[in-house]
């Protein structure tokens, strides 16, 4: 009885196994048919994930923030990624201007969420941290927001492209212009972190090379609120120019408080070494008029920039784009073109294509990514209009000079970048 029961169970099991095997074979057949039907054309479907990492809630959130994400989306649309068989996803996060937060986010994105390229990253200390991690993970880093020229100097990396501007370009733009108009003694008000130090260093070099003198510097905590004490020290130094080596809300606060202490009335000039369109918007033309600044992009430069900026403003609460946001558009567009040309998203191949192909778009015109990762393009010296000269909202700048690409950025051999032979 037991044996027959055992036999019966055995037979049943064998039959089930047989059915199971038949089912498995059937499934296999079904899946292969499905795969053949879904098979894509000659260009295999590449999917690319772009992470826009910047300050979304603090000092730098207006000049980058959500606007950078809007710009990245516009780049994907204009590139017509869908038609070319490239599937692009955009994610974004807030690094709160803290290098540790930025590092954690970058690692998580690269390791766990399959992000291939990180874009934007204002705040030089966070950019330097993400620069290292990108090199370690062999991904790609498109810097638009950060300024420190070390990103293409001693910290240069084969995985990083520094797109929009840097402290060297600012120093040689605004710094040079101020010295040439008589500002030969300087005192710096510096944000006490990587960016401020880099900007102070680069501008001091310009001032001294042009025969001027740096009388001193005071480093304020970043971010700061009350600059009255530091401005008083600057006033006491007697320097002809007070260089503001800071950005965002720090700069606007310092300018507001400087006018309160009668600094410009006393004969000293303020040099805003890094000023964005959003800062002028916040200060108002009454306070900001006459400021000289260097930027890489302005919405009102020509018909193409105007058309693009109008589209941007419609998607971003009526706010015009800053050069950082324009840089995100431009760098993401160039990256996608490189992916298409390389036929894959392998970092080395794509970086090689990005450096080989000249870049061309409505915002920056023609440009080139150099060996050290520096993207060179024309820079512009602007001056803020007076309230009478302005015809409406966002009409803030007049062009004083165009600095051609060959002269705007630090020469390739002077940066100390190990990639340059």
């Amino acid at each position, binding site marked *: 009885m037991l044996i027959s029961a055992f036999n019966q169970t055995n037979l049943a099991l064998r039959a089930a196994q047989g059915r199971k095997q038949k089912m498995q074979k059937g499934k296999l057949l079904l899946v292969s048919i499905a795969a053949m039907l879904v098979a894509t054309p000659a260009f295999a479907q590449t999917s690319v994930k772009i992470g826009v990492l910047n300050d979304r*809630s*603090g*000092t730098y*959130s*207006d000049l980058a*923030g959500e606007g950078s994400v809007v710009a990245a989306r516009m780049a994907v649309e204009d590139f017509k990624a869908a038609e070319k068989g490239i599937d692009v996803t955009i994610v974004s996060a807030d690094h709160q201007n803290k290098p540790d937060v930025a590092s954690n986010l970058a690692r998580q994105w690269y390791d766990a969420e399959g992000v291939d390229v990180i874009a934007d990253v204002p705040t030089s200390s966070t950019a330097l941290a993400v620069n290292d991690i990108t090199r370690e993970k062999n991904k790609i880093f498109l810097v638009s927001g950060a300024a420190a020229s070390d990103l293409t100097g001693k910290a240069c990396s084969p995985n990083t492209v520094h797109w929009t501007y840097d402290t060297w370009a600012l120093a040689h733009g605004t710094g040079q212009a101020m010295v040439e108009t008589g500002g030969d003694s300087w005192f710096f008000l510096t944000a*006490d972190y990587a960016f401020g130090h880099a900007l102070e260093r680069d501008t001091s070099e310009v001032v001294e090379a042009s025969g001027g003198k740096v009388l001193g510097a*005071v*480093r*304020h*905590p970043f*971010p*700061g*609120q*009350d600059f*009255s*004490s*530091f401005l*008083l*020290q600057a*006033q*006491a130094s007697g320097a002809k120019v007070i260089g503001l080596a800071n950005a*965002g*809300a720090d700069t*606007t*606060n310092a300018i*507001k*408080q400087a006018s*309160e*202490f*009668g600094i410009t009335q*006393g004969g000293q000039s303020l040099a805003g070494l890094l000023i964005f369109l*959003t*800062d002028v*918007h*916040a*200060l*108002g033309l*009454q*306070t900001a008029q006459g400021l000289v600044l260097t930027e890489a992009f302005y919405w009102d430069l020509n018909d193409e920039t105007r058309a693009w900026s109008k589209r941007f403003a419609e998607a971003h609460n009526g*706010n015009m784009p800053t050069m950082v946001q324009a840089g995100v558009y431009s760098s993401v567009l160039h990256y996608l073109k490189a992916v298409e040309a390389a036929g894959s998203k392998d970092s080395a191949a794509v970086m090689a294509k990005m450096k080989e192909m000249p870049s061309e778009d409505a915002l920056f015109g023609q440009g080139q990514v150099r060996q050290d990762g520096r993207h060179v393009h024309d820079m512009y010296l602007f001056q803020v209009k007076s309230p009478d000269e302005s015809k409406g909202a966002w009409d803030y700048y007049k062009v004083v000079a165009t600095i051609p690409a060959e002269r705007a950025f630090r020469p390739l051999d002077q940066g100390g970048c190990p990639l340059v032979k």
Partner: protein
Amino acid sequence: MFELLGIPPQALFGQLLLGLINGSFYALLSLGLAVIFGLLNIINFTHGAQYMMGAFVAWMLLDYLGIGYWWALVLVPVIVGLTGIVLERLMISRLYHLDHLYGLLLTFGLALIIQGLFRNQYGISGEAYSIPSQLVGVQNLGFMFLPNYRLWVIVASVVVCLGTWFVIEKTRLGAYLRAATENPTLVGAFGINVPRLVTLTYGFGVGLAALAGVLAAPIYSVNPNMGADLIIVVFAVVVIGGMGSILGAVLTGFGLGLIEGLTKVFYPEGSAVVIFVIMAIVLLVKPAGLFGRTA
């Protein structure tokens, strides 16, 4: 003249005066916090957001209604104080019987919400608010040029701080309030409406924060984050001064403003940290704070 560590005395006096001005903001804000904590036992983390609301409402009054600075000084504390009263009635009063920490969590959450709402609406770069025409200009004090507006800030905050201290320590209303915190049941038995007293006191504390906001609007950038950075420092001031002591909060506010001002001259990079270093030392040596009374 002698030089102190390389700084000429004139520069030093100028910096001390600026430190005193900063100290007056600390004093005004910590006064509000000390009143609310000392008398109501609520750790009001929304204080920074209410300071920011004060500055924003002043800007809104000017921008939307054309109402100027001097009227704003009176109207804004009342408006923001009323919103504080609404918050207290609806939410904070339900937590009195619980541990302090619940009040802290609630007010902290409220602060984040309020800041987020303003940031969503107005962005981070800030709004322009100019100094009223009567206060424009500088006084030449010899060792520095002091803007008239900053002089006004010191005067206004000293007057308000002394006035508040006087009301709480020397008048009958203040006596009721102090009694109500010690023994609310007994005071209630005397026919005094204790919950209403508590609500009005919270509203007053919030009004003080809003007043500080209006005073700050012309000189600091009116942006949604303006309270967040300041409130941490103000809490440190209140802890150093002693959580229950009102005079302690005011004196410590001015004192720490001076110390911060000195640090900005001799070691500017450390000026954001020095107050916390002092707080750590005070907590180690005298945990109840410099003027605090251990319960």
